[in-house]
């Protein structure tokens, strides 16, 4: 979707403000918001792509007004409701419906380190070779789906060069909407800054973007 999350190349957001390495969390509730999102994600009911899309589809005013962890929390509420972990009544009442089905077991403290260290790799096997090789020139498709896509708006319809082949990875654009999404060859595609931004950009600069095979056409 062409949403307010797709910020590459936008003007008007002001300067970037540096900050020291610590503190990691600027408020106590940030810790709980982060940890709840990680812990609930461990149930495996939604992919990271679906959770991204849940945040992207927040109302535009929320996209601008809410802070980062507020948006995470709002996205989590969307997912909790969609996947039946909680009901609207439970959220409104603030207590569990005694008749609701229980799910077990929840992630425990001692399991956390191993769960984080394992993560959720997106690499997959695929029974066909990649269509492109490093060095190939490709053009990105010009598509504007209302659904999730990882092809940023600023990079559509532009010509770049494959610089890395990452192997097959589950296709994010599809996985945001269905769990059994296929894998597609994933590439790092380098675009000259002038190709993306016109003659105002500096010669020699580039932007490299990870794109899946369905995003690309031969030139």
């Amino acid at each position, binding site marked *: 979707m062409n949403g307010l999350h797709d910020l590459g190349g936008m003007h008007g957001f002001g300067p970037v403000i540096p900050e020291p390495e610590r503190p990691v969390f*600027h408020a106590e*509730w940030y810790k709980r918001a982060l940890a709840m999102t990680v812990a609930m994600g461990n149930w495996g009911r939604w992919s990271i792509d679906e959770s991204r899309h849940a945040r992207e589809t927040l109302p535009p005013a929320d996209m601008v007004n809410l802070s980062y962890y507020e948006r995470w929390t709002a996205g989590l509420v969307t997912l909790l409701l969609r996947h039946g972990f909680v009901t609207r009544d439970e959220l409104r009442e603030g207590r569990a419906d005694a008749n609701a089905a229980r799910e077990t077991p929840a992630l425990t403290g001692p399991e956390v380190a191993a769960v984080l260290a394992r993560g959720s790799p997106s690499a997959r096997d695929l029974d066909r070779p990649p269509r492109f090789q490093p060095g190939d020139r490709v053009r990105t498709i010009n598509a504007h789906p209302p659904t999730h896509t990882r092809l940023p708006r600023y990079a559509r319809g532009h010509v770049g060069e494959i610089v890395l082949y990452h192997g097959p990875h589950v296709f994010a654009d599809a996985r945001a909407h269905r769990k059994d999404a296929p894998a597609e060859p994933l590439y790092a595609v380098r675009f000259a800054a002038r190709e993306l931004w016109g003659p105002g950009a500096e010669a020699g600069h580039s932007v490299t973007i990870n794109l899946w095979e369905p995003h690309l056409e031969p030139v």
Partner: protein
Amino acid sequence: MAHDEPHGAHHHHDHEHDAHGLPSEPDLKVRAIETLLVEKGLIDPAALDAIVDSYENRIGPRNGAQVVARAWTDPDYRERLRADSTAAIAELGYSGRGGEHIVAVENAPGVHNLIVCTLCSCYPWPVLGLPPTWYKSAAYRSRAVIDPRGVLADFGVTLPADTEIRVWDSTSEIRYIVIPERPAGTEHLGVEELAALVTRDSMVGMGLPKAVAA
């Protein structure tokens, strides 16, 4: 998007509850959700504590600094890092969530790398921890790809006019870490001393390693 402070200037607290009946104050909202999920047995507060402890005390940019210092001092390691960054980083014990697949990109004379995620805030968690506020900000996400010298200037970094800036937009589960150039005059330093020179920002490409004390 525009800010990440507990109480942003443009925040509206004139309503007590959101559309779901949850408190609109974010701290109260988050507590209400946690209380409900704990009551339902869906989360264990001890697991949340362990997750917070992991990202506050174990998983952060000091991990990445170890990778960089090792790459600076061990040519074989550097080769392994080039060949398979994820595996070379896992050798040091760093792996998993938010960095299941990592590519290390190396600065060199005349080449400077910069990492951004324009679509959300993808960041190499196992080696750099959680992203700083500025990395998640609309200001950084919008400008890094179109005006890299401008965002570097905000951080006080001025690169030579002929330096090639390579921006990497983290649009997939491949995450990046920048291997900055080893500072001059550090030939006598060991891995731990070198790691202390490696700032978080230098591994995003928004800074340079600290200079050695003269």
